[in-house]
């Protein structure tokens, strides 16, 4: 009796386990802007200090040396451009590393609790439901929809842009996010980070950009090439670029100081390669953030410095001692751009006052980095979760958001990446889940009913 029971129980358990072992989540789709990284979590290490004039950030993250970004290659008698931003890892692995953060002084609603999610909306660039270009050009005069604040729209639709006078009033009252972006290729070679701000769009600060286009659309040729008198060559080789043979010490970039106007009559060779960006000294508000970086043993060490008050109240958030601000980080690595980054929950940043991240005050010019402990900021893949979704009935935490509860009060970092993937693949997962529920229920019921019949048969 016991042996039979045991054998039967073991058999049934094995059937259940076997079916369980074949359980899987939906396969990743690369179409419709869907690409999911293998690692859903990462981390960033941070130190922050300030003195009388400036605030200093030291940021550290692991990555391959992502210094390459957009090149022009001589191929078959003409110049071709490598692909720009693309879903997931760049096909030629030519996309720069970036570390960035959004900063606010409490003016933007929900940023302190929900962080960068408030800037992500349906139909944005590289979402599966990306808005048609013609629509965006008609409404915004841009090619695509990028980060914006909910306050700048009348409804959840990106098309419902507020009137210019309403927008101006909001901006004047400080309702915008400061966006600092360190770019390994497009700003770092000249010792700067890009200075942007998010409001009705992801805008660049006033002034000269740290990078310009080295591609002449009319002639379909580069605008500049290397100055052979200064660097000893006129172009890089595709072999070196494609195989990542250059390092941070090499000239993987082009600046005005080492460039001369492009010579179309030069006997260009197959595989000659030029950077598609001319990296230059930024000016005005765009050049507020100084940067210095090192890459060693797979780790980026980035130092950023900006005046506490850069004097551009409509582009930047000025910082004051003893005040608390809010900050949310992002890291682009492994040759990925646009939304394929790792993001953090929002944190409070206190300048010599209690907060999640405390910026310590120091006297003098050189930050005492060695005396400061690192603070680890967990990062996660955010997927295609939008503010529209988070504030809808489809998100169980909608009420929590309205009550001002932070996302970290309901979710762990480990969950965020997994939930992002589930959200991204929901159209594939849901039908399969319905089938699994039906299959499980019918199977259990079926064996019970069949078992009962067995008894009747014996009777």
């Amino acid at each position: 009796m016991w042996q039979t029971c045991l054998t039967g129980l073991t058999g049934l358990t094995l059937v259940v386990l076997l079916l369980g072992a074949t359980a899987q989540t939906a396969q990743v789709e690369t179409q419709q802007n869907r690409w999911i990284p293998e690692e859903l979590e990462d981390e960033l290490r941070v130190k922050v200090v300030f003195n009388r004039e400036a605030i200093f950030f030291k940021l550290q993250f692991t990555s391959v040396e992502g210094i390459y970004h957009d090149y022009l290659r001589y191929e078959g008698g003409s110049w071709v451009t490598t692909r720009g931003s693309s879903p997931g890892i760049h096909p030629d692995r030519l996309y720069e590393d970036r570390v960035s953060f959004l900063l606010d002084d409490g003016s933007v609603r929900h940023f302190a609790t929900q962080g960068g999610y408030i800037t992500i909306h349906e139909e944005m660039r590289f979402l599966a439901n990306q808005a048609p270009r013609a629509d965006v050009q008609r409404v915004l005069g841009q090619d695509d929809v990028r980060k914006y604040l909910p306050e700048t729209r009348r409804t959840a639709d990106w098309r419902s842009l507020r009137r210019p006078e309403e927008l101006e009033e909001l901006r004047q009252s400080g309702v915008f996010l400061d966006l600092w972006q360190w770019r390994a290729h497009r700003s770092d070679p000249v010792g700067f980070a890009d200075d942007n701000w998010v409001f009705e769009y992801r805008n660049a600060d006033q002034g000269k950009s740290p990078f310009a286009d080295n591609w002449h659309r009319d002639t379909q040729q580069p605008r500049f090439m290397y100055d052979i008198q200064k660097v000893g060559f006129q172009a890089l080789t595709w072999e070196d670029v494609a195989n990542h043979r250059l390092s941070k010490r090499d000239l993987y970039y082009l600046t005005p100081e080492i460039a001369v106007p492009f010579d179309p009559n030069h006997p260009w060779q197959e595989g000659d390669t030029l950077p598609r960006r001319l990296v230059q000294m930024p000016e005005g508000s765009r050049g507020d953030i100084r940067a210095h970086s090192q890459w060693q043993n797979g780790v980026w060490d980035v130092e950023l410095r900006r005046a506490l008050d850069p004097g551009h109240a409509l582009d930047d958030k000025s910082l004051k001692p003893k005040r608390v601000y809010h900050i949310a980080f992002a890291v682009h690595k492994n040759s990925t751009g646009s939304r394929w980054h790792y993001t953090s929950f929002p944190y409070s940043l206190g300048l010599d006052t209690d907060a999640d991240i405390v910026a310590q005050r120091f006297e003098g010019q050189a930050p005492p980095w060695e005396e400061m402990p690192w603070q680890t900021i967990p990062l996660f893949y955010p997927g295609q979760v939008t503010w529209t979704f988070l504030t809808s009935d489809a998100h169980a935490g909608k009420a929590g958001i309205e009550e001002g509860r932070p996302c970290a009060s309901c979710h762990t970092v480990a969950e965020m990446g997994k939930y992002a993937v589930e959200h991204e693949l929901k159209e594939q997962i849901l039908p399969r889940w319905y089938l699994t529920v039906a299959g499980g229920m019918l199977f259990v019921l079926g064996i019970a009913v069949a078992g009962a019949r067995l008894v009747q048969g014996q009777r």
Partner: protein
Amino acid sequence: MEARQAFHAITAALTTGMLALVFFAVLTTLVAAARADRYRRLAPYADGAATLGASLGILFLLAALVTGFAQWPWEAYLHSPIGKNKIFTALIALMCWAGFLWLRWKAGDQLWRDRRLVTLATFLALVGFAYIVFTNSIGGHIAGKPSGFERLVMAVGIDTRRTFTLPTWGSALLILLGLAGIAWGVLPSRWRRPSPP
């Protein structure tokens, strides 16, 4: 909202308590029925407790499902992996206990005398109880009070933060097997066997 949460907590606790009692009653019946000594007399009492307890447990479970569905909009459940997993485990538990009762109702006292039926009934009770514990564990997480049980589940490779799904062929196989079992169990004998000439 708080009232809805309280009602769900009450019905879920009643379900768990009742079905835990049933599970131990089943084990007691199983052991008692297999013995030849005086403890054998325990079997009918334990069987009665299991049957009554399972009936009440199913009612509480249905009430827990109703109060559970009232917590969030349906759309929110479909967008929540953990919410979907909780629905799945609750429904499997419901089916296990419904199957157990069906078996007991059809087999009567003979249930504990037939080795195959004892195996099946014990299996249904075991899996049904395990799924109830699992459901409660997920519920604890949703309520912000995660239990250690989920860590145990995750340690064996089951990730409760991802929707439980089988490959389509797996689900189709289960549906076919289930339907075949139900058909074989409920269709009259003459439909399954040709009448003698």
